[in-house]
């Protein structure tokens, strides 16, 4: 157990920093510091391609798929420097962090060759088809159906149903979809994990307006949408196992990038508190210190997760990570509003547009819901980490 870096690693840090500085003070200076999820889209898609060309997009992946086989330390360093440089939020994160690792772990060689290089190159973007209106927390209840049909170019999956809470769908070429592929099956059995092209007649996107007034999420309707028989990850019927595997990737190196975003929000909050004098209020001071503690804990716990082996069941520090950050950010939002006072409730501009901190306050309310509500997280922790009895389903 040690924290420091070797000389070689420090040299790597220098290399990252130099490249990022060159790009972000040069061709990409317009998007330095951009955090909004759907802001400056075109330039950020171009940025993804630039990352790909210079092999900085997925440095932990094997070189043959566009990565650098980077060590953990190198990945940590890159994430830190990426954030330090004020590089923009990754438009490609669903491919880079979820679809890619899933295909890498569960896919066939053919799938890897087909999909991974395009993700690494920033040429294809992804979105996620898990939740449905009646299968939010309860993923095993998905009803979106898939059936194999003979087609002129070989067998194809035909998909009907509806997914929801799909972010970045409007920019994605592909979606990974958990479908019920065995008719009459129930629960986790009989599901398949399919890779489906978005640009086709059978796929319709409808944006969802949310509490912040923004339209980040979407509903996706599948009406006879098609994909090749070979674009099923894992065997047909093994979709549950593959989907659960994806959850583990959410506890990966990307957490470091997420923390850097949180750090930015924290710094804004401190600046506001110092500017309006609330930083001298003993009650606010305690809460700011507590927020800082949480920020550091997330970093330490992420380093623990990343340093531990990836085999087998997730260790407790990984199982507790999601509820920790989600609850932390929700509290940060409340603290931000208390720092700003009533003035924070005044919008910046029509239509319903807020400064970063109030918007974060509103946006943070979804953190404890998506990717497993706090309630689901506590079930998971109690059952998997503490070995307590499982919560019974009502329908079995």
């Amino acid at each position, binding site marked *: 157990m040690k924290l420091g870096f070797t000389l070689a690693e420090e040299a790597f840090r220098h290399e990252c920093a130099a490249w990022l500085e060159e790009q972000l003070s040069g061709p990409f200076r317009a998007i330095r510091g951009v955090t909004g999820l759907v802001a400056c889209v075109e330039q950020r898609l171009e940025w993804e391609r630039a990352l790909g060309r210079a092999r900085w997009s997925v440095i932990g992946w094997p070189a043959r798929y566009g990565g650098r086989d980077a060590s953990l330390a190198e990945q940590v360093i890159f994430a830190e420097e990426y954030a330090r440089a004020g590089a923009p939020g990754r438009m490609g994160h669903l491919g880079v962090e979820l679809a890619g690792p899933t295909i890498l772990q569960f896919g066939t060689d053919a799938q890897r060759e087909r999909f991974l290089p395009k993700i690494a190159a920033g040429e294809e973007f992804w979105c996620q088809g898990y939740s449905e209106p*009646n299968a939010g927390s309860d993923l*095993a209840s998905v009803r979106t159906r898939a059936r194999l049909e003979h087609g002129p170019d070989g067998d194809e999956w035909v998909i009907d149903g509806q997914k929801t809470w799909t972010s970045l769908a409007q920019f994605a070429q592909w979606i990974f979809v958990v479908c019920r592929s065995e008719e009459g099956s129930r629960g986790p059995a009989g599901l398949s994990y399919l890779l489906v092209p978005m640009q086709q007649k059978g796929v319709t996107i409808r944006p969802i*307006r*949310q509490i912040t007034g923004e339209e980040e999420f979407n509903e996706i309707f599948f009406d006879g949408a098609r994909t090749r028989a070979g674009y099923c990850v894992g065997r047909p019927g093994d979709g549950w196992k593959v989907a659960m595997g994806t959850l583990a990737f959410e506890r990966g190196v990307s957490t470091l990038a997420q923390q850097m975003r949180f750090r930015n929000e924290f710094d804004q909050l401190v600046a506001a508190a110092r500017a309006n004098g609330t930083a001298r209020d003993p009650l606010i001071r305690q809460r700011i210190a507590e927020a800082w503690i949480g920020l550091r804990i997330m970093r330490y716990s992420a380093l623990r997760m990343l340093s531990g082996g990836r085999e087998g069941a997730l260790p407790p520090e990984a199982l507790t990570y999601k509820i920790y950050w989600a609850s932390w950010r929700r509290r940060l939002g409340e603290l931000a*509003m208390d720092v700003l006072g009533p003035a924070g*409730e*005044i*919008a910046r501009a029509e239509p319903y547009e807020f400064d970063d901190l109030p918007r974060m306050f509103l946006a943070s309310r979804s953190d404890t819901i998506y990717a497993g509500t706090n309630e689901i997280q506590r079930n998971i922790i109690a059952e998997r980490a503490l070995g307590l009895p499982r919560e019974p389903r*009502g329908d079995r």
Partner: protein
Amino acid sequence: MQFAFTPEQEMIREAAREFVAGHGGADRLRAVLAGSRGYDPGAWQALAVELGWTGLAMPESADGGGLGAVELAILLEETGRRLFMSPFFATSGLAAALLRECAPPGQQERWLRPIAAGECIATAALSDDSGQPGAIGARFTPDGSGGGRLEGHASFVLYGDIADLVLVAARAAGSQDEEAITLIALPRDTSGSTAKRLLTMDQTRPYARLVFDGVRVGAGAIVGAIGQAGAALARGVQVAQVAFAAEQLGGAFGALEMTVEYSRQRVQFGRVIGSFQAIKHQLADLLVACEAAKSAVYYAACTVDEYRAGTASARDLAEAAALARCCCSEAFMQCGAHAIQLHGGIGFTWEHEAQLYFKRARSAMTYLGAPDWHREQIARLIGLDDPLPATAGGTR
């Protein structure tokens, strides 16, 4: 000593509930939100003139119904329960309360009578852009004629842009005397006074910002005496705090009831989610907070009546008001937050009422003092700063 509702009070509640069911509700609310007024003139006419609610709790000397603060609290709880948008609190809860405390009998009827008759929408302008209690942004300079000149600004003025009458609290220009406050009854369209609707996070309780640019104030617009309103205004605001707490209480119960109802319908894992103990216990805690808040509101409302009858002290009033605001702000905020959390993703969408309750809870929490501020008032009232008795022993 009978701390239960009388049959007459129960009837008032029933009637109020019926009115709100007819004129409020999700669809009506959407329609009002889509418009620019911030209330439905037809519904207001029905409330103020046909039902006579603005007169109900007014003294008979102002042609009011002569009922008390308890009855007013019942009406506000019921309008708050469904986020009914109207200037009812601004007019009858706030402006009327200030007039009754600050204007001597004989003078006050002039303003109270049109309010009681439902012919005057009134409000009060009490704080500057910080929105903090006691932070007054308007300055008054007497001109020797019994009137004077008003300069400065006021913000967070409920319905300040459409009110027929705005009670403006102003400090003596250049004076250090914190108590040298003048209360001015400013009619709509007074020359030099401009009002602009603010775009706010919570869209259900519209604020305006008022600017006073050399406003000429005649002697007849001075409520009470120049520079003498401080203590009476403080008491008037305390009376208004109780009414506002009642509206918050309704919001808390409304959010809770909606969430309980949803948890009885929504099925996940083959069970209604209200059968999961984690959900049940969260809802139980919310009810505990709501019932505590209800006790606080109606005790405070009784205290207002006793204070007006001379059988409770100004200190009793101050404590009861601060206590009611603490309990109601927190109960509403908790219920609003849990409404989103327990509705899951759907509660986070723009179309859903859950996020409306949440935002309303937040803006209500900081209006006329956040809970920390009210608790600090209580800390002083219960004597934490009183000098130690000379005989007190030292520490152990």
